[in-house]
């Protein structure tokens, strides 16, 4: 026994295979090794010493996993896969086994906000492909907390400005302030650590989350599903809310374009949906203010998957292309994202194919009269 994993969490899987149909990487390969059950068996082999940490399959599968946690809500045994993945990467990606890009990204995320604001994020990352802070962490701990009804973000709540989001999508933060004017927005926020937790530095990731929890007063509202899930896991679900849980739509007018309601669809944030159980809320909001159409597979990962799109661009693009086909087939003007990582992924993909569909963050959608739709 090497003590890499929490033994209780690792032993909870009974290999029933119910998670196989939910896993996008298994769907792509049909190979047990790239399924949640197969990965758990690999983790067990690492734990028992059957496999060494530098085994090529262990290295490959620890990075091929999207960390989307689609395997969690479908698991009747309640296996906390996200948590196991974090423990796995912590061990697996130590030292030289850490993908260099993953290391660079977490360093950037740890820089003081000022440096980041100077555009470091943009500089370090390939042009036009800045990574957004939140992306999707694999949060540890309890698998799925059902979304609790949230009191409106009134007095004492604060707005968290995702660190990469601030650098890459300043409009999102601005829109969120407009939507929730009552919130405090302290300046020196720092990073929530989701990116670290997801990339083999869970101790640091959790420490950063705790620090943020101390800095920001009251309930913390975020515009990023990935940050929300990670923060909730570390500082408690009751202290965290995602935008769609607190926005009051009754005050918002319809989004219109060319004399009709904007036709809109949603891309779920994996961690928001699978980690926090929040997916009805954004749909209810969009249905209230626009012509909402569900895209088949909206609950499946868009391939951004935190750093995945940067570490494994070919696979990521394959996943994305299938998704964009489905979005375009639905005839939407706008696809709304609730996580900056997804937003970047969708926007890059739609631009590449010169699509008429626009990718817009929920906050922007709710502040622009036309929801950010193409006007002609």
């Amino acid at each position, binding site marked *: 026994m090497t003590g890499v994993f929490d033994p209780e969490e690792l032993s909870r899987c009974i290999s029933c295979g119910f998670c196989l149909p939910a896993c996008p990487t298994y769907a792509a390969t049909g190979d047990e090794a790239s399924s949640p059950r*197969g990965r758990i068996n690999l983790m067990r082999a690492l734990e028992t010493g059957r496999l060494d940490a530098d085994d090529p399959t262990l290295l490959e599968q620890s990075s091929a996993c999207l960390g989307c946690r689609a395997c969690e809500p479908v698991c*009747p045994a309640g296996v906390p896969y996200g948590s196991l993945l974090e423990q796995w990467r912590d061990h697996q990606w130590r030292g030289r086994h850490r993908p260099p890009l993953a290391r660079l990204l977490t360093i950037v995320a740890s820089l003081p906000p000022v440096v980041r604001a100077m555009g470091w994020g943009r500089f370090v990352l390939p042009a036009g492909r800045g990574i957004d802070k939140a992306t999707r962490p694999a949060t540890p701990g309890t698998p799925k907390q059902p979304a609790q009804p949230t009191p409106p973000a009134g007095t004492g709540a604060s707005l968290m400005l995702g660190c990469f989001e601030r650098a890459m999508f300043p409009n999102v933060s601005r829109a969120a302030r407009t939507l929730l004017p009552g919130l405090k927005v302290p300046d020196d926020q720092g990073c929530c650590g989701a990116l670290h937790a997801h990339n083999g530095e869970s101790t640091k990731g959790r420490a950063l989350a705790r620090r943020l929890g101390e800095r920001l007063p009251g309930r913390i509202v975020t515009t990023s599903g990935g940050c929300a899930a990670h923060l909730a896991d570390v500082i408690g679900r009751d202290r965290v809310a995602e935008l769609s849980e607190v926005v009051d739509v009754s005050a918002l007018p319809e989004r219109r374009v060319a004399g009709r309601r904007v036709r809109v669809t949603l891309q779920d944030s994996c961690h928001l949906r699978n980690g926090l159980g929040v997916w009805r809320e954004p749909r209810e909001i969009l249905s209230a203010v626009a012509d909402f159409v569900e895209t088949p597979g909206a609950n499946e990962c868009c391939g951004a998957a935190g750093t995945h799109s940067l570490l494994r661009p070919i696979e990521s693009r394959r996943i994305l292309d299938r998704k964009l086909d489905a979005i375009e087939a639905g005839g939407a003007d706008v696809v709304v994202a609730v996580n900056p990582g997804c937003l970047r992924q969708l926007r890059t993909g739609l631009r590449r194919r010169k699509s008429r569909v626009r990718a817009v963050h929920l906050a922007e959608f709710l502040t622009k009269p036309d929801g950010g739709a193409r006007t002609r």
Partner: protein
Amino acid sequence: MPLSTDLFDRLRAIVGAEHVRHTTGDLTPYARDATPLFDRLPDAVVFPADTAEVAAVLRLATEHRVPVVPRGAGSNLCAATVALNGGIVLVTTRMNRIREISPTELLAVVEPGVTTAALADAATAHGLLFPPDPGSRTVSTVGGNVATCAGGLRGLKYGVTRNYVLGLEAVLPTGEVIRTGGRLWKDVAGYDLTRLLTGSEGTLAVITEITMALLPAPADTGTGIAYFPDLAHAGRAVADILSAGIVPATLEFLDRSCVNAVEDFADLGLRRDAGALLLFGDDGTSDAVRRDLNRMAELCDAAGATEWTLAEDVAGAEALLTARRCSLPALSRLGSLTILEDATVPRPRIAEMVDRIDAIADRHTVTIATFGHAGDGNLHPTCVVADPNDTESIERAHAAFDDIFRTAIELGGTITGEHGVGAAKLPHLRAQLGDDQMQLLSRIKSAFDPARILNPGKLGS
């Protein structure tokens, strides 16, 4: 026996280099299936694309006396896909096309790697029904279903997989491709090899195409639940329902531990304090469904149900069925090792069997939760062990199951109703079949597989 480099080269030449696995890491996920306590690394995993590739792999394996273990989704519960003697695991997931759905002939032609749910959905899209409904339907493959003769939640009214297999294409271990049966319900030319291969657990041939009968989809379905003070009362209700001349599509029961485990996962608002839950459902014309559901509810009431409700809509019914399908994995919330069996007895003896299982659990001081397909007499007593490394508890669990198997046979039942024999129950098979039949199985095995390379250590071994 490790395979030689030449043999690997020839495997690669057959299926393509990217479809052959050989490193310990790549093999690890194929060391086990859904059965606990069985774990053995194969020497190679291959993913053939079609019948010709399957045939070439088998010919090579027979030539070199290398064991081959066919594998679909690996969801079986009897260690049927564990490579006990090493060798090649042959995975069918690449052969996953639905070749044809024929509404006029009421049949489907599929490759073995198609999942049960994919076939059922395709049938539904054509207004048809694929009745076999194993709890693992979203995971399991049709090839695996045929090879295990899977049952499921609709067995009482609709039977099991064997009732729907019209024809098979299969590759013998020596490489010949045979076609059994065909597209006809009536076809008595030759021994019924279709039936023989159905339930053969990958020990006689590799199934490469299945012609499956379908039915017209029923107009309506309905589901209800009733709570009872204990399983014995629920068992009485089952007997009353069946003797009232109702043959419902679904009649499933769960004891209190199962209800609680399922509720923990699915959060449906089931009553946690009930001793047992009976899930009943039927399909057909709307009038008939309503009438039968109401009658079943009345009969439950008369048999001592403390409460009953009918699902409001299809979504509600589906949620109940989905929750029932999750019973086994949900039970693992009680302890991380769950050993499940599927002893089956004639319907009138269900209540007796339930009582005897309770007594056996007490005698061996083990925790046994029971759920199952009540209408078929098919019970799933599941032994939950808190610590997977506690060998003493595991031994007690095995001793309890020995008693359960013996009791099932004594009551005129079987050691396995639907999960199969595999490696897990092979030691118990002789007690049920006797020496003569065991020898016959072995001779049949040799006729198909003279080198005895196909799934050794299982049926026929």
